[in-house]
């Protein structure tokens, strides 16, 4: 990693730490307790932020998959792979925080409702995305197959949502504009904090995979030297 990159990554880390601390303060101390739902409503700030990051991550997978099939540069495949992993982590967290909120508020853990069902299908598609990679005979073929699924899967999600939408929707509608300022601020800061966290994690994974490639090259070079 170059000098410039280290500085940049440290600035990013500092920003992430500041935003995350601010988000924790705003969510748990600053934001008023919701009248009807009580304390449990505070999970909403993290739930929405993580859902946003998960969607962002899968959008990045979609774009990088197209770029990989088009340009065939390995870097697009690397970004797509790590973004899919992060997307799955955040979708899993969304699927866990949702029922924790739903049980006291709705009285049930789960409802087969558009947004919930679509999120679950999304999660299953990207699990398949990682499986395709690991079951492919060579890495390059796995990258190609994964890119195909990264495109097909992302296009499928709106149709899944639409097809389930004809059932009555239970999910609280996205009323971001109706939130009182004292609740909107924690949400926005929380979204920003999680977005920065995503950027930190993805840049770290990419530089780690670059280092791995470098080590492999050095090893190969050494083995070749010994042989000759």
């Amino acid at each position, binding site marked *: 990693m170059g000098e410039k990159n280290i500085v940049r990554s440290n600035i990013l880390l500092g920003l992430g730490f500041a935003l995350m601390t601010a988000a924790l303060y705003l969510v748990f101390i600053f934001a008023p307790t919701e009248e009807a739902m009580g304390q449990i409503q505070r999970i909403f700030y993290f739930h929405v932020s993580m859902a946003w990051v998960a969607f962002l991550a899968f959008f990045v997978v979609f774009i990088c998959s197209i770029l990989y099939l088009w340009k065939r540069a390995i870097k697009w495949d690397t970004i797509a792979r790590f973004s899919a992993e992060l997307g799955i982590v955040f979708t899993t967290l969304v699927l866990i925080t949702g029922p924790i909120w739903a049980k006291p508020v709705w009285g049930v853990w789960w409802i087969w409702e558009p947004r919930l069902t679509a999120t679950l299908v999304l999660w299953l598609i990207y699990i398949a995305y990682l499986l395709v990679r690991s079951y492919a005979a060579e890495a390059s073929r796995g990258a190609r197959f994964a890119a195909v699924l990264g495109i*097909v899967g992302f296009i499928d999600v709106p149709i899944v949502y639409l097809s*389930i939408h004809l059932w009555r929707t239970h999910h609280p509608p996205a009323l971001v504009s109706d939130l009182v300022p004292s609740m909107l601020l924690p949400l926005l800061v929380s979204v920003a904090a999680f977005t920065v966290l995503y950027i930190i994690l993805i840049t770290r994974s990419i530089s780690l995979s670059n280092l791995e490639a470098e080590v492999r090259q050095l090893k190969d070079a050494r083995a070749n030297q010994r042989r000759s």
Partner: protein
Amino acid sequence: MKGLFTGVFAIFWKDILSELRTKEIATSVLVFALLVVVIFNFAFESGADTIGLVAPGILWVAFAFAGMLGLNRAFATEKENSSLEGLMLCPVERHVIYLGKLAGSFTFMLIVEAIITPIFLVLFNLPVCMPRLGIIIVLATLGFTSVGTLFSALSANTKARDIMLPILFLPIIVPVMIAAVKATGLVLDGGTWGDISTWLQIIIAFDVIFLVVSLLVFEFVIEE
């Protein structure tokens, strides 16, 4: 245009001929679909009062599972006999191969469905002649096979071939599954074209979108 049609038809006819001689896919898929219908009948303990609720689901689970079995064979046989290389050496564009294989799988699946549906309707004491059900089946089968042919080619090139296709195929076809089950339920209740038009639109949208996307990305799946 004429070249495209000749190429697609040649690959399609090759699949039909080899199937006519071996009868490998159609018989096994047919028996399997029938078994799914029978087993699900026990699983749901379907009496006269619940049949309207579970019958569409049973029919479409049978079609989806049987379809997967058939689609798996579509490229697995090519791979086993190393005829995929031969297919790729054909002087045609990659999407012609896709369309040819799609036409084959689509036809096999329709034949199986044409036999299973009347048996299913008789076994569950439902009205036998229904053009609306036919349209739903044709459109949904096109959706199944358009995605299925792409994933069949993909999974044939992976290590865990048999398990890879269901894992890829099932989450993607969720919209077609929902729409087909809902529309079939409405038709069995005596619904009109107006009642099922929304669901048909979803299936048609799915068919068009995934035919185009599959045509675009198919070349990346079978390139060596």
